[in-house]
């Protein structure tokens, strides 16, 4: 693949002791001939995630795995901006540590970007070759309902608004982060809607999503209310 591009993979973690080791291994397995670095933004996980990251640095090198920790849990949105500040690549990949986002798709993100010259490549679960595993009927229903509502009201031009497995041109990500104010779940949606409104070239690649094996989904009543608020917010501000 192209040699002048460098990819900074930002992985926010909070209590991902086991997952971070697995994901780092898989990233190195699937990105062979690519210049990349992994930036782990850990928010002082009490389970010792950072200790594992240091062990991984011994295996893979401190220049390939950067630990950019913060003292306490400060939330996902700011974790991204913190990571970007330390990114040395011209492209940034954002992915979750919990193995819902499988590193085997990284080459297809990179390939898609090289082919199309897009500023953003976003992973989508709702197309052919994409998919989700491990959701019950209720989870699927909320997901579809949320998607139909957002598609009808916002016309975003992307099929999967809340997925967060994405590749960004670094300058574009910086621009978007500085113009997005939402927190948590809505943040991903705001990023892609604003990107679409700003006219950035967005491409999609299919990904599969295996729900985290440990713990249950946090999508409860309060998340739905947050989501609806986010939708209204985006309606009137973008």
């Amino acid at each position, binding site marked *: 693949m192209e040699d002048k591009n460098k990819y900074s993979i930002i992985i926010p973690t909070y209590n991902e002791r086991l997952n971070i080791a697995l994901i780092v291994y898989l990233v190195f397995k699937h990105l062979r001939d690519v210049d990349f670095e992994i930036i782990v933004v850990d928010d002082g996980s009490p389970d010792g995630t950072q200790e594992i990251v240091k062990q991984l640095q011994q295996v893979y090198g401190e220049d390939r795995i950067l630990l950019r920790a913060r003292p306490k849990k400060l939330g996902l949105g700011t974790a991204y901006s913190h990571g970007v500040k330390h990114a040395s690549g011209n492209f940034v990949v954002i992915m979750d540590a919990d193995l819902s986002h499988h590193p085997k798709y990284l080459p297809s993100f990179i390939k898609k970007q090289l082919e199309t010259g897009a500023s953003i490549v976003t992973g989508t679960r709702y197309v052919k070759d994409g998919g989700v*595993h491990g959701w019950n009927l209720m989870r699927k229903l909320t997901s579809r309902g949320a998607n139909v509502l957002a598609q009808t009201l916002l016309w975003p031009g992307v099929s999967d608004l809340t997925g967060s497995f994405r590749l960004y041109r670094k300058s574009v990500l910086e621009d978007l982060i500085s113009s997005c104010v939402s927190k948590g779940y809505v943040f991903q949606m705001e990023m892609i809607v604003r990107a679409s409104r700003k006219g950035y070239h967005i491409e999609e690649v299919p990904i599969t999503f295996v729900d985290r094996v440990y713990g249950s989904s946090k999508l409860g009543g309060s998340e739905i209310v947050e989501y609806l608020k986010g939708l209204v917010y985006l309606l009137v501000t973008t």
Partner: protein
Amino acid sequence: MKHIVKIMTLLVAISALWGGLLQISMVPRSHALLLPIYFVVCLGCYGLLMVGVGLMQFPTCPQEAVLLQQDIIEAKKYLKPRGVDVGSD
């Protein structure tokens, strides 16, 4: 233009169309008066239909969970002897 303005414009355009229809009384007035209700009902049906179709065609990938388990075993096998604590078993 804010997105809400676009949607409002669309709604205003549709209302204007409806108002016009009432004026020229091409269709019986009693029918024309009911049109907004049909519109809302149609919109609701469309939403339900889309959600229903989406649910029925929800793409799943059970084989991916199996592959992931294999990847996890492989990763542990590689990392353990290299001094990374990947837990027991």
